[in-house]
C-alpha cells in the first residue's frame, strides 16, 4: 500500500490558470503583439532620454560621499559601503539605456569599493574620484554606445589609474 510508505517528494501540478487568463482556452501558442512590443521599445527610448540627467544626479550624490571620505577619514568605511551599493545599482542600468560605458565604470567602481580589511588609503579615495570623473565625462559628452575613441581613452585612463593604485598597494 503506497499510503503507508513515507512520502519523500510531492509534485504539485496545477492547471495553467495564467494561460487561461491571458489567451483563453484557444489551443496553440499566443504571442505578444508586435505593436505592443514596438510601443514599449519607444517608451523605453523615451525614458532613455532622461537617463543622463538621472545619472548626473547620482554622480553628484557619489561626489558627496567622496567629499565626506576626504574630510572625515573615520567615515570612509560607511561611505565606501554607500558608494558600493550605488555603483551596483548603476552597473545594472547603463546598458539598458544605451550607455554601456556607465555600466563598465560603475562595475569597476563596484569591484573596487567592496570592503577589504585594513584602512582605506588616500589613493583609494582618489581612485573613486577617477571613476566619477570618467562617468561625468560620458554624461557630459552624451557618449552612448562604446563611445569610440573617447570611450577608449576614458577606459584606458581609468585602468591605468587602477593599475597604478594596485602597484602602490603592493609596494
Amino acid at each position: 500500500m503506497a499510503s503507508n510508505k513515507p512520502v519523500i517528494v510531492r509534485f504539485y501540478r496545477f492547471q495553467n490558470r495564467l494561460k487561461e487568463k491571458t489567451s483563453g482556452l484557444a489551443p496553440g501558442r499566443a504571442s505578444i503583439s508586435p505593436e505592443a512590443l514596438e510601443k514599449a521599445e519607444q517608451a523605453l527610448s523615451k525614458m532613455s532620454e532622461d537617463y543622463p540627467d538621472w545619472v548626473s544626479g547620482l554622480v553628484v550624490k557619489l561626489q558627496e560621499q567622496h567629499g565626506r571620505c576626504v574630510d572625515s577619514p573615520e567615515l570612509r568605511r560607511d561611505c565606501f559601503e554607500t558608494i558600493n551599493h550605488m555603483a551596483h545599482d548603476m552597473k545594472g542600468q547603463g546598458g539598458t539605456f544605451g550607455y554601456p560605458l556607465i555600466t563598465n565604470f560603475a562595475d569597476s567602481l563596484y569591484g573596487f569599493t567592496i570592503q577589504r580589511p585594513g584602512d582605506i588609503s588616500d589613493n583609494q579615495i582618489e581612485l573613486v574620484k577617477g571613476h566619477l570623473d570618467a562617468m561625468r565625462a560620458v554624461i557630459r559628452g552624451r557618449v552612448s554606445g562604446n563611445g569610440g575613441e573617447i570611450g577608449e581613452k576614458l577606459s584606458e585612463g581609468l585602468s591605468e589609474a587602477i593599475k597604478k593604485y594596485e602597484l602602490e598597494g603592493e609596494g
Partner: protein
Amino acid sequence: MSDYDFDRVNVLLAEDSQFIRSLLTNSLKVLGVGNVFPVEHGGDAIHFLNRVKNEPMKVGVQQIDIVISNWDMHPIDGMMLLRWIRRHKDSPDRFVPFVMITSYTEPERIVQAREMGVTDILAKPFTIKNIGEKLISIIERPRQFVHTKEFFGPDRRRQKFPPKVERRVLTDKSEGVEIIRG
C-alpha cells in the same frame, strides 16, 4: 496565432531604484499588463501581499499572478522576499511565479536563487524583448512544483536529458512520490 491579453494579469514589482521601477512599470503597462503594483523593497512587498490576503477588496486585487523583484534592495532584499513567499506560513501563494532581476549573474548566485525557488532570472541590463520573453516563458512553460525535505520550488530540471544519461529520476509511480493536482 493570437495575441496575449495581459489585461487581467496582476504583477507585483519590487524595485528600489526609482528610475528602474518607473521604467518597468511603464514597460509592463505598455505591453498590456492590466495591474502593476510597484513597491520599494521586499518589506513593502511582504506588507502588500499580506494585505492582498487579508483585505483583497480594499486593495482591489484578489491574487498576484507574477512577482518581479530586484535582488539587491534594502532593508529586505529579493532573496528574503522569495524565501518568505515560498516558505512562510502567512504567504498568500507559495506557488506564485517569481522573477528575480539582478546584475549578479555569477553561476553560484544563479544556483543560490534557484535553490530558494526562483522561477526565472532577468539579468540587468535588460531589454523590452527580455521582459516579453520572461512573460511568455512563465505563461507557456510552467513547471511542476517539487517539495522535498530540502527543497520547495519550481522543478529545477528543465532540460530534457537523452534517455542514455543515467539520472536518478522518480516517476509518478515510484515509491514515496505523491502527486497533488489543482
